[in-house]
């Protein structure tokens, strides 16, 4: 199958996903739990070779997007097209396994503590018929790419530091030459001096192998460094999406603006932060039919309560806010 360079490598079409939280599961039924919408009709395209950053706070649904992309969970509705074929529970093993890899936030649990580095990194090769020498060779190359040498091969995973574990996890993710690598807050639990090293490595190997990245973060500065394109999400909805240079330097959606102002930055003062609290923030129902940011919004209008704003197309980006309805 030849992939046109302009075709997205993966496409999410109208994906919805909800979880039931808080209730008690009993006899297979969930009782009394609230339905919490993680994603509501989200559509996204991931292009070959780009870094798409999903920027959002906790509960925004960004990790759910990662689970949809990797196929760790299936959507309630909507479809996922990977290299022009639809992913289903039946075919995802044959189509996507090994081809979409993920690096997680929690370095401590992202590697099996009873394995050696070699066992961890080579696990994605378990199906290949490579000889052991060939496997060692591949593992060594992957390790080299993340800045580790062969002395690590036989080391036990639990002896390593957080930064080293995260590098091992990256080596493991790239060894099967995947089409997409999803990073779910992959650097946010690292010290900032180590984070800088890891971010540089990611950019380097992407340039070297033309990897496609989906990079999930809550950190505005990290997003700015990594992104080609950025997508800002809030309670399961995309609020703003577009090239990172323009979206992050000049955000349009009131939430994006708040996010920018609230992000800590050396030598800056907090400006424009309402000490007002989001006491009565939205907690969950899908069919509210109004803008979810309404409670916290400075520019709220009567209209925002009547229907949920769709994504309006601006010149280079899309924004889900009625302020930009006619622009």
């Amino acid at each position, binding site marked *: 199958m030849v992939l046109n360079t302009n075709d997205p490598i993966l496409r999410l079409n109208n994906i919805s996903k909800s979880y039931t939280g808080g*209730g008690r599961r*009993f006899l297979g039924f969930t*009782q009394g739990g609230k339905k919490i919408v993680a994603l509501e009709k989200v559509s996204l395209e991931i292009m070959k070779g780009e870094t798409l950053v999903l920027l959002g706070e906790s509960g925004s649904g960004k990790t759910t997007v990662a689970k949809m992309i990797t196929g760790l969970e299936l959507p309630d509705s909507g479809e996922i097209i990977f290299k022009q074929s639809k992913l289903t529970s039946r075919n995802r093993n044959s189509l996507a396994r090994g081809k979409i890899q993920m690096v997680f936030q929690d370095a401590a649990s992202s590697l099996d503590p009873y394995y050696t580095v070699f066992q961890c990194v080579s696990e994605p090769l378990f199906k290949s018929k490579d000889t052991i020498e060939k496997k060692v060779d591949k593992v060594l190359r992957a390790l080299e790419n993340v800045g580790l040498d062969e002395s690590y091969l036989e080391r036990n995973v639990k002896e390593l530091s957080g930064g080293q574990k995260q590098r091992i996890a990256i080596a493991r993710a790239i060894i099967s030459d995947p089409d997409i690598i999803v990073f779910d807050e992959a650097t946010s639990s690292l010290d900032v001096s180590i984070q800088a090293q890891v971010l540089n490595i990611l950019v380097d190997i992407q340039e070297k192998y033309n990897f496609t990245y989906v990079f999930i973060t809550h950190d505005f500065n990290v997003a700015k460094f990594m992104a080609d394109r950025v997508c800002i999400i809030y309670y399961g909805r995309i609020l703003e999406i577009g090239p990172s240079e323009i979206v992050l330097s000049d955000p349009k959606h009131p939430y994006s603006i708040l996010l920018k102002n609230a992000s800590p930055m050396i030598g800056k003062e907090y400006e424009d932060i309402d000490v007002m609290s989001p006491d009565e923030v939205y907690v969950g129902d899908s069919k509210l039919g109004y803008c979810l940011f309404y409670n916290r919004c400075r520019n709220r209008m009567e209209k925002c309560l009547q229907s949920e704003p769709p994504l309006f197309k601006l010149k280079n980006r899309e924004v889900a806010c009625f302020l930009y309805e006619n622009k």
Partner: protein
Amino acid sequence: MSSGIARYIATRAVASIITVLGAVILTFVLTHLLAPNPAHIWAGPHASASEIAAITKEYHLNQPIQIQLYYYIIDLFTFNFGMSPFFKQPVSQLILVYYPRTLILIAIAMFISIIIGIYSGAFAAVRQDKFGDGIVRVAYLLTWSTPPFLVALFFQYLFSYYAGWLPSGQLADPSLKVPPFVTPILPLNAIIFGDWGFLSSYIVHSILPVIALTAISFGIITRITRSSMLETMKLDFIRTQIMKGTKMSKVVYSNAVKNSLIPVVTVISLLFSFLIVGSLVIEEVFSYTGMGYLVTQALYNYDYPTLIGSIFVIALSVILINFVTDVVYAFIDPRIRMGER
């Protein structure tokens, strides 16, 4: 708030009922399917051919299995456990006489165990790795590792043979007449008939079994309280309480103990099971005629109906206690009360 807790209780109740049904089926499988020759063991070892035939008919043992199950369930739910071939009485009648005697012992022992257990557990946790902690740990390790019969022998020797303070066994002085059976609760019968001599003798005779039962079981509570206290004391909110300027004793005995009690509640049904097992053996040593006596007698005399009836009633009690502790649990912990967990 109330609807949350009502829903919670309802779910737990349904789960308990399912477990009861399971218990019925489990005993059925045991008695009707696993038993090599059901009629023979139901009738007892000394039964004649005609008795076995009668038993076969009575328990529908020659019928298809689903019919057997049907009658079995009907019987169990009407507490009809059949006739005891050894005692020559209906099993339900026997249980009604013997079980309450043991339940009284167990209830008292449980109450004391919980008090001692919580106190000693908290005491040890506060003095972690110091002398007091060591003493408590050695004490519960020893009592918990000692077979109940040995514990019973020890107390029997100490208080009865050596010191001579307490009688070495029996339910009450054998020369006294047991008051007539009006209620299943023996001391209540004694009170009704104003038989104070019997009542005091009964109380004196019950002390040693209660002490022995407490000794074997408080360790469960101590252990869980201690470890749960140690966990709780590490949590941030304890430090917040200290930093607020709350008196240390209040932090420990109010905040820490209360939070540590949640896991303690969950082991109460375990404690009950443990006490039931203990009572089998302890009653044997003290010749105390309670449920333990009934079960061991049934065992020694090949009295199958009594055995099955007894374990079914015991299982019912455990399930009931489980249910009650679940509900208590919900009242202690607001997170469950509000359906968050």
